[in-house]
């Protein structure tokens, strides 16, 4: 390889690394930018479907997607609105909950002492409740900064989204011109595959979480269980975590059912609702929507999600799966090339 071709490759990677460093050190700009990009990847496949064909087809497609968006957004907004009421109620009940938990724990400690002769010196209830209260106080104190960042995002995200839609094709071709010839084909193909898979995965996960959350909320409302909206959101969000997510999502409902003295609240009915919702997800939603997009080994999925959660929190958990699928694709490509040589 000639010297200037090597220089081009080094320069390209230097620019790439500098961009990554910039992104890490300026999260205030890169987070809304990344969020806008994810939104763009989610909406873009739909726009190409809307824009193609004749005017009649365009109108039909537009109406269809608007209806789908309404079906998704209206329950989501309603749930978020009602979740606020649920959350306030839950906060009111925290001292009561603490007393109940403490009482149950003392009962358990005595039973444990009778059966084993070992006295438990730990006091996890106080520790957990103190943590919950301090987190709540932190959340309250951070509300002003949270509001200002929400306002900032409300301004930046539509702006970035507009530019992604308007300029993405030109920008992509201009960016591709910087890629050295020797690695161009592979880089371009992998970049395109990653973009497509990433967009498809995010939209599939979003739909999956919405369906599961809605099913749980509806079921809980039908049996008259308290906090149906907030429990529905928790079930939907925790569903991001494959395999263990549904169990984690069930724990709050289990706690509410165990601690409630209301005779309407039955542990069996709640368990059946969660089982049905998760069965629908496992049998219908997941195989039809998500599994076709990423073909990863179940253990690899769990390990990746845990690592993603450790590094990047909830966002890390969502983003890590398509990232790992991309790395797998990259290794496969390198391995095939080595084999061919």
């Amino acid at each position, binding site marked *: 390889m000639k010297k200037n071709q090597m220089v081009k490759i080094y320069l390209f990677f230097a620019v790439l690394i500098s961009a990554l460093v910039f992104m890490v050190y300026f999260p205030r700009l890169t987070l809304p930018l990344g969020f806008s990009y994810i939104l763009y990847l989610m909406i873009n496949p739909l726009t*190409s479907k809307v824009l193609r064909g004749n005017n009649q087809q365009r109108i039909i497609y537009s109406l269809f997607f608007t209806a789908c968006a309404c079906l998704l957004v209206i329950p989501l907004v309603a749930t978020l609105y009602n979740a606020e009421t649920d959350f306030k109620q839950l906060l009111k009940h925290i001292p009561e909950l603490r007393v109940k938990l403490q009482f149950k724990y003392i009962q358990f400690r005595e039973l444990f002492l009778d059966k084993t002769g070992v006295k438990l010196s730990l006091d996890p209830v106080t520790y957990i409740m103190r943590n919950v209260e301090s987190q709540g106080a932190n959340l309250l104190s951070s509300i002003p900064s949270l509001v200002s960042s929400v306002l900032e995002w409300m301004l930046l995200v539509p702006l970035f989204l507009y530019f992604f839609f308007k300029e993405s*094709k030109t920008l992509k071709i201009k960016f591709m011109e910087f890629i050295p010839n*020797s690695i*161009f084909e592979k880089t371009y193909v992998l970049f395109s*595959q990653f973009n497509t898979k990433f967009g498809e995965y995010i939209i599939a996960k979003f739909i999956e979480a919405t369906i599961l959350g809605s099913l749980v909320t509806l079921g809980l409302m039908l049996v008259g269980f308290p906090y149906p909206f907030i429990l529905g959101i928790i079930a939907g969000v925790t569903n991001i975590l494959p395999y263990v997510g549904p169990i984690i999502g069930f724990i709050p409902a289990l706690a509410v059912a165990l601690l409630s003295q209301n005779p309407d609240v039955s542990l069996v009915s709640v368990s059946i609702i969660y089982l049905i919702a998760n069965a629908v997800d496992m049998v219908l939603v997941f195989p039809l929507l998500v599994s076709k997009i990423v073909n990863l080994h179940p253990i690899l999925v769990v390990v990746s999600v845990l690592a993603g959660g450790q590094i990047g929190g909830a966002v890390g958990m969502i983003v890590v799966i398509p990232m790992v699928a991309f790395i797998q694709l990259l290794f496969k490509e390198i391995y095939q090339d080595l084999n*061919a*040589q």
Partner: protein
Amino acid sequence: MSYEERKKELGPDDNSERLNINLLRYMWEASPLYFKESYHTYFRNLSIFKSFSDNDIRIFTTYLHRREFEANELIFKYGDSGYGFYFIHSGSVSIQEPNGEEIVNLGEKNFFGELALLEEGHRRPATAVASGPTVLLGVFKPDIDKMLESHPVLGAKFIHEAAMILASKVGYMTKEIMTLRRKIELLEKKN
């Protein structure tokens, strides 16, 4: 006042109000909006774009990637995964066997690599090297997928043309094989 009345008033030989096309062209080309890298004329003259309308070509060119190669720079080598179909805009490309022996030298307005768009997991059957400073216009598998998604008729037309090129190459190769087989049979009979 109508055009005819104005023409009568000025007289038949007066061309002072005639539209000066050359001046307009100069003004347009001098403006910053003028896009000098237009590949329309280039593709209009290529046989595989015979069935394409001007608008088809305009849309097709938005999917192209311009790649500049220096003399003796490798474009792809034998056994590489292939994803791109290239048109030679300027310069020339040497198609070589893995040992470096030249099979053919392709000049301007030629194209190569069409198999990469049609075959899944395609591996390059030969090495391509730029003979001199060369400009290639490449279209790649993801571009074709996008084209089929947003401009399905254009995408299908292009794939059809690529398949036609391949069919003609396969036809030519079949004839060559038959000729060689006959020659071998003749040689065997002689011996």
